[in-house]
C-alpha cells in the first residue's frame, strides 16, 4: 500500500501511521514522555510488518492478579527463567493490576480511570528505574487499547496528565508494550540451549490468548514460517525451538471460555465452552500431552473446567494446562512444585512429567519437607536459595 494513499479503514490507517510515530510526535510537543526500550533488546517481527523491540533485562515485572492469586507457579517460573538465564529484574510492590478484569466484567469503571491505572503503573516503573514487562494477556491487550485512547483522545490525555501530576508522576508511555511471552520468544534459543530433558516425544497444543492478539492486533508477534503467518506465532515458536511436537486443532481461534464475568458467576458457560470447544477438540484431533498458553485466565479456565466435565459428565477431557514459562522452566530442570507450583493446578499433570522423565514422587516429597519445615517454625519461607 502506498504511503500517500488515503486510508480506507482504521486498520489501513494504523498500518500507515505506526502508533509509535504518533507517540514520538506527542513527545516532541511536550505532551507525553516516552520510556525508551532499554538495551540490550532483540527486534522481532510484528503482524503489520514492522519490528518490535523486546528488552531483555532491567524489567519491572507487571504481575497478574489471576496468575499470582490462583496459579503462582506462572509468575514464579517467569522469575526463575530470568534468574537462570542471567537477566536481572525487579519485582515491585508499588504495582496494581491493570484492573481490566473489572473493566471488562463488571463495567464499574471508565476510560479515564483505566488510563489512570495504566499510566500510574508506567510512571511508577519509570520512577523505579525499570521498564515494564506485562505478565497478563489481558493487561497487555488492555494497555495497548489504553495507549490508543491516550494518544488519540486529547481529553483523556489531559485528564490523566492532571491526575498523574497530583500523584507526583509524569505522564509516561513505554515505547513498546511488551508481554512476557514476547520475552520468552526473544530468548527461546537461550532456553533451548539449557534443556535438561528431551521433549521430542511430547505433543503440545497451543491456545493463543485472545487479548494478546485480538484487542490490538498490529504488534502481536507473527512469523511467516509459523502457520503460514496466518495466526500469531507466539508460544509456538518457543515450543518448536525446544523440540516439542506442536499439533494443530481446528478451534484454535476460539476463546477459552473465561468470559471475565462468566468464570466468576456463570461458570456453566465457561465449563461447557472450555471443554466442548477446546479440550475435547484437542483430544480428538491431536491427543496432546499438554496444552500450553500464555495468559492467566486461559490456564485457569482450561485447567479447572475439566474436573466436573470429566468426573460427572464423563466427557473426553484430561489434558494438563500450563504456561509456556512453566513448561520451559520444567524442561530446564526447575522443580515442579517449588518453582512451577503445579500442585495449584487441577488436571493431572503427572503423566506429562513422567513422559519428560521427571520423578514427581521424589519432587513432591522434597516439597512436603519444605512445608513441614515452615509448619514447624524451622524456616519462615521457601526462598530462591532453596530452589
Amino acid at each position, binding site marked *: 500500500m502506498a504511503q500517500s494513499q488515503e486510508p480506507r*479503514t*482504521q*486498520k489501513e490507517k494504523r498500518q500507515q501511521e505506526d502508533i509509535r510515530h504518533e507517540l514520538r510526535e506527542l513527545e516532541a510537543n511536550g505532551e507525553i514522555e516516552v520510556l525508551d526500550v532499554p538495551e540490550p533488546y532483540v527486534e522481532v517481527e510484528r503482524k503489520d510488518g514492522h519490528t518490535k523491540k523486546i528488552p531483555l533485562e532491567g524489567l519491572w515485572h507487571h*504481575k*497478574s*492478579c*489471576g496468575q*499470582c*492469586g490462583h496459579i503462582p507457579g506462572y*509468575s514464579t517460573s517467569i*522469575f526463575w527463567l530470568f534468574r537462570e538465564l542471567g537477566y536481572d529484574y525487579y*519485582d515491585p*510492590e*508499588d*504495582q*496494581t*493490576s491493570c*484492573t481490566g*478484569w*473489572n473493566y*471488562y*466484567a*463488571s*463495567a*464499574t*469503571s*471508565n*476510560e479515564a*480511570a483505566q488510563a*489512570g491505572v495504566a499510566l500510574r503503573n508506567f510512571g511508577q516503573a519509570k520512577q523505579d528505574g525499570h521498564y515494564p514487562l506485562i505478565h497478563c494477556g489481558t493487561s497487555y*491487550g488492555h494497555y495497548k487499547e489504553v495507549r490508543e*485512547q491516550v494518544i*488519540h*483522545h486529547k481529553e483523556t490525555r489531559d485528564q490523566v496528565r*492532571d491526575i498523574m501530576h*497530583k*500523584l507526583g508522576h509524569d505522564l509516561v508511555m513505554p515505547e513498546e508494550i511488551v508481554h512476557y511471552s514476547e520475552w520468552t520468544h526473544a530468548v527461546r534459543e537461550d532456553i533451548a540451549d539449557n534443556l535438561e530433558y528431551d521433549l521430542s516425544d511430547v505433543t503440545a497444543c497451543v491456545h493463543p490468548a*485472545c487479548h494478546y492478539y*485480538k*484487542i490490538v492486533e498490529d504488534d502481536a508477534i507473527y512469523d511467516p514460517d509459523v502457520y503460514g503467518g496466518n495466526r500469531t506465532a507466539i508460544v509456538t515458536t518457543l515450543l518448536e525451538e525446544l523440540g516439542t511436537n506442536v499439533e494443530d486443532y481446528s478451534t484454535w*481461534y476460539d*476463546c477459552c471460555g473465561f*468470559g471475565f*464475568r462468566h468464570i*466468576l*458467576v456463570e*461458570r456453566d*458457560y465457561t465449563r461447557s*465452552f472450555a471443554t466442548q470447544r477446546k479440550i475435547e477438540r484437542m483430544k480428538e484431533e491431536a491427543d496432546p500431552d499438554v496444552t500450553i498458553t500464555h495468559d492467566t485466565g486461559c490456564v485457569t479456565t482450561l485447567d*479447572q473446567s475439566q*474436573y466436573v466435565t470429566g468426573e460427572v459428565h464423563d466427557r473426553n477431557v484430561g489434558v494438563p494446562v500450563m504456561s509456556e514459562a512453566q513448561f520451559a522452566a520444567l524442561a530446564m530442570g526447575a522443580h515442579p512444585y*517449588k518453582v512451577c507450583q503445579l*500442585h*495449584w*493446578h*487441577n488436571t493431572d499433570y503427572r503423566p506429562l512429567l513422567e513422559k519428560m522423565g521427571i520423578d514427581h514422587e521424589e519432587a513432591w516429597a522434597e516439597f512436603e519437607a519444605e512445608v513441614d519445615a*515452615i*509448619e514447624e517454625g524451622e524456616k*519462615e519461607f*521457601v526462598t530462591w536459595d532453596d530452589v
Partner: protein
Amino acid sequence: MSEANKLPRTERNRVNEVERTPSAMDARKEAGKMFATDYDDWSQEEKEEIFEKVTEDIRHEDFMYGCYECGICVAACPSARFYDFSPRRIAQAVGREDVDLFFEQLNEDAWDCSQCFSCNRCPRENSPGGLITIMREVAVTENLDSAEEALEGYERVIYKIMSTGTQVSPDMIQPEAFPDWGPSAREESEHMDEWRKAIPPETLHTTDTAWTVSDRTIAEMFMIWHETDVLDMLEEIDPGIHMILTDMMEEKMEEGGWAEED
C-alpha cells in the same frame, strides 16, 4: 433455485414473508411494535437518552464504522454458540440507531458477551465487544435492573479490585465458592498459609491480595478512583459497597495528603 429466489430482493422478501408461518413478531408488527414489549414503561425519550450516552462516549467512534452484515463476528463469537446472542445485531442496532432494539439488547444481551474480542476480526473494523463494554458501563451508571441482576454475587470481587488493586487473591479459593473445581480447591484452601509461604518470590507470600501492594500505591489508586468519578457509578446500583469504598477513599486520600485539595 426456486422461482421465488429468481425475483428481485424486495419482491423475494415479500414472497418469503407471505410463505412464512405467522409469528409473534407479525402480531407485534401489526400492533405497530417491532420488538419486545417488556420495556414499554420506558418512554422513547428515556431510551434515546440512554442510547446517546453510548454513541456520545469517546470510544464509540473507534468501535463502530458500519456493518457489511457478513456475520464473521457471529461465527467467531463464543457467546453466540451458547446464548441467543449476536454481536452482529449489536453492531447493527447501534449503527442503524434502532433505539428499541438497542434497549432490548442493553437489558437482555449485553451481559452474555465474553469480552474476548474475537469479533474484532470484523472486516469493517467494528468492535461489537467494545460497544458492549460501553453499554455495560451505561447500564451500571443508569442503575438498570438488568445490570443490578448481572452484578448480583459480584460484590466481593468489586470490593477486592477497587480496594486492593488486585482482583483475584488466594483467599478467594474456598471450596464452597468453587465446588466444581473439585478436591483441589479444598486442598488449596486447607494448606493456604503454608503453601503461600512455600513460593520463592517474597511478593507472593500474601493470602488476601495476589501480591504485596504498598499502602502508598493503594492510596494513589483511590485518588484515581476519586478523580475519575468511578465510585459514583456504584452509588445507586450497590449502595453498601459504595459507602464502604467511599469511606476508604476518604481515609486513603487523607493518608496520601490530598484531602485539602478537594
